[in-house]
């Protein structure tokens, strides 16, 4: 089939004291071997939950339905023991928040070496050596000394690199990078993008890049899936999505980029407890029609490789002027 990961009709919800939070609502997503898929959306749209659903790292009050087929193996409902064999070795996660995702009381050398020890069955001494080498390859000056340091002694970018090193240390087939640029200032963001780019080049890994930052996604990804309120609303090759966005939300996202004048999408993202009926986006959509409030659109194939979830995708499917231009580096420089 060629699919490394095939997610079908994934639904993830949480039972909380305030009600059932529906974070992921019927997501279908295909990631092919060797490609980089960007999962883009506003904060709180469920994209991180999607990542954690794949890893089986959700808290106990979560409920997961649907299938996540990894190399033909359904991960949902897999016993903890089995899914643990997948984690780190097959699918690795580069978690968000580098500042809090490293254990403050353990030396970073150990934290990286642990993966080598665990996943590549290296004895501790060799694992440590491998960890230092790995840190060196991430441009750590004096990695032997750095390995003896604690996370709080590192800068934000360094922490991110340590996390990236931990991610690829197990030589996974699929790497999920969760918001690697969130909360970072521009300079570090460039660094991180650079790290990821190197990563991709080096490992030729398949990657799922979860980000709210369309620009980062555009720099790195082969394909982009745009997520809104727990649903994929548009997916396709990066160039197509950027040059020919078919969904009003995607267009809104593109318009809100700094290079395009920072025009935000109006309104607030909906509460995941009480989702609007019909098209989830209609309360915020400036093209919404009567039907939008009642009919829930399906994700339909509109072009080669492109899918969109909008009742009016035909009308909208017309080439517009290039909304997005320029590369990441240029702008940041």
């Amino acid at each position: 089939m060629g699919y490394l990961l095939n997610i079908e009709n994934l639904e993830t919800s949480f039972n909380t004291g305030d009600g059932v939070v529906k974070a992921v609502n019927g997501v279908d997503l295909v990631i092919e071997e060797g490609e980089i898929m960007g999962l883009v959306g506003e904060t709180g749209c469920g994209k991180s939950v999607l990542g954690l659903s794949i890893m089986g790292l959700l808290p106990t009050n979560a409920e997961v339905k649907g299938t996540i087929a990894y190399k033909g193996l359904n991960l949902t409902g897999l016993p903890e023991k089995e899914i643990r064999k997948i984690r780190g070795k097959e699918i690795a996660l580069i978690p968000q928040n580098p500042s809090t995702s490293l254990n403050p009381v353990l030396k970073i050398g150990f934290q990286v070496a642990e993966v080598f020890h665990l996943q590549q069955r290296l004895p501790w001494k060799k694992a440590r050596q491998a960890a230092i080498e790995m840190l060196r390859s991430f441009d750590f000056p004096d990695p032997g000394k750095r390995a003896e340091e604690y996370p709080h002694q590192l800068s934000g970018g360094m922490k991110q690199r340590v996390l990236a090193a931990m991610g690829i240390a197990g030589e996974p087939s699929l790497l999920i990078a969760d918001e690697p640029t969130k909360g970072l200032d521009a300079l570090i963001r460039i660094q991180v993008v650079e790290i990821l780019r190197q990563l991709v080049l080096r490992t030729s890994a398949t990657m799922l890049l979860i980000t709210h930052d369309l620009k980062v996604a555009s720099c790195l990804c082969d394909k982009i899936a745009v997520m809104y309120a727990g649903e994929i609303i548009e997916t396709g090759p990066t160039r197509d999505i950027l040059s020919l966005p078919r969904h009003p939300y995607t267009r809104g996202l593109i318009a809100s980029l700094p290079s395009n004048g920072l025009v935000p999408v109006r309104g607030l993202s909906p509460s995941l407890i009480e989702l609007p009926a019909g098209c989830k986006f209609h309360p915020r959509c400036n093209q919404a029609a009567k039907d939008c409030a009642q009919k829930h659109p399906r994700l339909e194939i509109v072009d080669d490789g492109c899918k969109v979830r909008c009742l009016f995708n035909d009308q909208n499917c017309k080439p517009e002027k290039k909304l997005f231009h320029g590369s990441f580096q240029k702008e940041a420089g």
Partner: protein
Amino acid sequence: MRGVLTGDRYVWQKKRLNRTFSALKENKLAAVGLIIISVLVLMAVFAPLITLRDPYEQNLEIRLTGSNEKYLMGTDQFGRCLFSRLIYGIRISLTTGVISAVLTMGIGVFTGLLAGYFGGIMDELIMRITDIVLSFPSIVLTLVIAGVLGPDLKNIIIALAAVGWTKYARVVRGSVLSIKEQEYVESAKALGASDIYLLCRHILPNCMGPVIVIMTLSIGGAILSIAGLSFLGLGAQPPTPEWGMMLNQGVPFMRRAPHLTIFPGLAIMITVLAFNFLGDGLRDIMDPRLKSKLFQKF
């Protein structure tokens, strides 16, 4: 001016109170604690109706009998009804516990307000004193103060207050420091409200949440301490039906009449447990940090 400033704050506080009560209903342990305490209070108030016998009346002919149809829990070494004494003991334990907790809180809140509101030398002085008092293991200091003043329940209460106020002082001071900067306090000040008015009307009510939690928890602690010091012979004097002292008096008869040891201890434990249940529950309800944590991570 008063009406405008206090009106919606009053409503807000009332709302918060209501919320606390409904939360209390949900928190099972706290509810159990509250129920036990209510039952204890009722038993204390209606002690003469519940018990058939005078807790002080000796009947040496029937000393140290076990539980029987006449005496629910048997008799003590003077032939007094143990059940009556335990029930009347609730009065002693609850009143001394509550009085000492309230007194402690009063001193602590007062000093905390002074330190937090006026700051400066006053603050420095009070905080240094709390540092020093907190450098003593509290029971040791309580024991010494109570002992030096002489064996008496009253002296134990004084000693407990003299040692325990520090924890309130610190909490209240912290709250005051943060509330003082709030807008409504600033505006009231600008409108010419006096210090005392500000303290009583705005600052004090807003410190009370944590204070009430600490107090509930410390009533249990106070009852435990009072019983302990009485056990050591520094508290109640005979024939007061104080549980700690009753326990101590029962020790010589541990083999022959174990009920004299078991029941008073059980009474202490249940009472303290009830206050701890309630206090724990109140803390969970009132400390939003703790509550939200449960749902924070999805």
